[in-house]
């Protein structure tokens, strides 16, 4: 790394700030609070400004490079979102202000709830959860409350699921039962039938699934779970593929969480927080976290806490409001037609990449994909080149690598390279990426060491990830 740590820039006695002359009587710190051994870095103001400016220039993000990080929907975040979220009428609110004085913010939240309910086909919405997994936790918990049925102790989850699904189910006290994928990458219906009995509380399903494929068995799978008395939870992480084309509620799902920070821009929170809004059927509305934003009979907006069956609060105050503003602006700027085009273009872009790389990288499942495509390193392994090497080599060409080694499905998908281009990229950008991926496939056969030693054209070359994970060094100490 070319940039030293602030501690390494330190020179004893150097200061970035000088206190004004003392204008009160001097008084010594109590001995308890005084210490000699506080090795804070000592630098001048210009040194610290340059240090952080240089670090910011090393940053990689959607505003600097193509970022096809599968499963994360790293779409461009329109600047108008940030402009709206920066309006003083939003930034200067205090969470304890009276309802009367925050009508604009409450209206925005109410209309966002309505829009998300319409998009999901699940009309009751809570904006409280702070991220996707938090939404899952709240959703499963709300569901559990609804059942009040301790005899149902199992949640069924496909082997392709995001790791957060079994974690959320386990946190809510359920046993997780895995249902395998069939040879086409859909839920294995025969295996699901065999599991479906009166011990099953529900199933969590991602659609499109983590392989980027529309689960062709989704309607039947939901029926099977409903028929045995369970509910079906949709992990909405991949909603970018379905906007305006398929409502999870119409497919039969009972609960869905959104990742507002994927589907509605602000990927990875735009560097900040996320938001995991929860949408449910009318039958489950009473269990949603409080407060919900409501429109009262006189047309004013308010916070409704009077929900005795609610699972209660899941977060301080009202959720991550800044992300809601951005999602709201995004939805309003796009409109219904625009959102439909988002998904159509996201699916088209992913299939374009798939079609242009399928002759050089292995596809475990040769199907039309949805918003992302999953290759593996199977054809490169014979040259001793693995997925990690391909990802590292992409850095040399200025691309953020795709998601790697996920999803992992034993005997079906190993060494995954998961590419999600999103709808916001031009054909020229996709062509540039495709050409580089094709070149890397040639290099793997002709000069594998080029890949083993990659990246060379980056601030840091190949990092020793194994030693970093085995010998954690979490604090700087003087050499």
């Amino acid at each position, binding site marked *: 790394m070319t940039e030293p740590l602030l501690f390494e820039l330190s020179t004893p006695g150097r200061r970035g700030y000088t206190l004004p002359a003392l204008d009160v009587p001097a008084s010594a710190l109590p001995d308890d609070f005084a210490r000699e051994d506080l090795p804070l870095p000592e630098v001048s103001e210009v040194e610290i400004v340059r240090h952080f400016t240089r670090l910011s220039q090393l940053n990689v993000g959607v505003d600097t490079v193509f970022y096809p990080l599968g499963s994360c929907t790293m779409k461009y975040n329109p600047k108008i979102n940030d402009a709206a979220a920066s309006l003083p009428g939003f930034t200067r609110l205090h969470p304890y202000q009276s309802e009367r004085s925050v009508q604009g913010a409450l209206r925005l939240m109410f209309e966002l709830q309505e829009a998300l309910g319409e998009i999901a086909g699940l009309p009751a919405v809570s904006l409280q959860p702070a991220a996707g997994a938090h939404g899952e936790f709240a959703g499963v918990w709300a569901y559990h409350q609804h059942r009040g049925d301790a005899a149902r102790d199992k949640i069924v989850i496909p082997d392709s699921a995001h790791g957060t699904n079994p974690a959320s189910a386990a946190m809510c006290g359920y046993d997780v039962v895995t249902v395998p994928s069939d040879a086409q990458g859909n839920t294995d219906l025969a295996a699901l039938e065999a599991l479906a009995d009166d011990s099953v509380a529900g199933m969590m399903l991602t659609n499109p699934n983590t392989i980027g494929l529309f689960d062709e068995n989704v309607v039947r799978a939901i029926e099977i779970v409903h028929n045995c008395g369970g509910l079906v939870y949709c992990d909405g992480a991949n909603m970018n593929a379905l906007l305006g084309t398929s409502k999870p509620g119409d497919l039969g799902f009972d609960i869905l969480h959104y990742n507002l920070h994927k589907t509605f821009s602000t990927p990875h929170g735009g560097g900040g927080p996320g938001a995991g809004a929860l949408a449910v059927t009318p039958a489950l509305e009473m269990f949603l976290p409080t407060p919900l934003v409501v429109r009262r009979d006189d047309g004013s907006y308010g916070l409704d806490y009077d929900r005795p069956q609610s699972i209660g609060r899941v977060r301080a105050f009202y959720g991550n409001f800044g992300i809601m503003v951005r999602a709201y602006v995004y939805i309003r700027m796009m409109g219904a037609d625009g959102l439909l085009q988002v998904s159509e273009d996201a699916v088209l872009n992913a299939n374009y990449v798939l079609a242009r790389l399928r002759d050089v990288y292995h596809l475990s499942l040769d199907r039309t994909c949805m918003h992302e495509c999953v290759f593996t390193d199977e054809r490169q392994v014979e040259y001793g080149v693995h997925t990690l090497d391909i990802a590292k080599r992409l850095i040399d060409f200025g691309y953020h690598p795709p998601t790697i*080694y996920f999803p*992992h499905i034993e*005997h079906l998908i*190993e060494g995954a390279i998961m590419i999600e281009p999103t709808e916001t990229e031009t054909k020229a950008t996709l062509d540039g990426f495709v050409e580089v991926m094709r070149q890397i496939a040639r290099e793997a056969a002709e000069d594998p060491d080029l890949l083993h030693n990659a990246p060379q054209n980056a601030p840091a070359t190949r990092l020793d*990830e*194994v030693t970093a*994970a*085995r010998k954690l060094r979490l604090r700087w100490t003087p050499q």
Partner: protein
Amino acid sequence: MSNIPSDLRYTTEHEWVRLEGDEAVAGITDYAQSELGDVVYVEVFEPGTPLTQFKPFGVVESVKAASDLFSPLSGEVLAFNQALEDTPELVNDDPYGEGWMMRFKPSDLAELDNLLTAEGYEKMLAG
């Protein structure tokens, strides 16, 4: 081809077990370590924790993945291989020897019949 000692019994989740007197030792197979890649962390439940056959007894993490470890037999945890705290790479280097993970007291040896023999495990890997 991965190494599958003939004197051990195996789970379908790639753990092995070896009986030593009235105690037993468990770890993960050569195939499992090669699939996981470089192991960076191993955690086994505290001594005294009851074990149920095919239920978790700990966690293994590699640079690629984190996985539950599944107990080959029911019983009670006796000890964790402390050497893995500082040198988890023993799991990669010597999965059936110095890379062992848990010593435990099995409660029902009849459960051995639920496990795979080396031959059965090899057949499973061949798929």
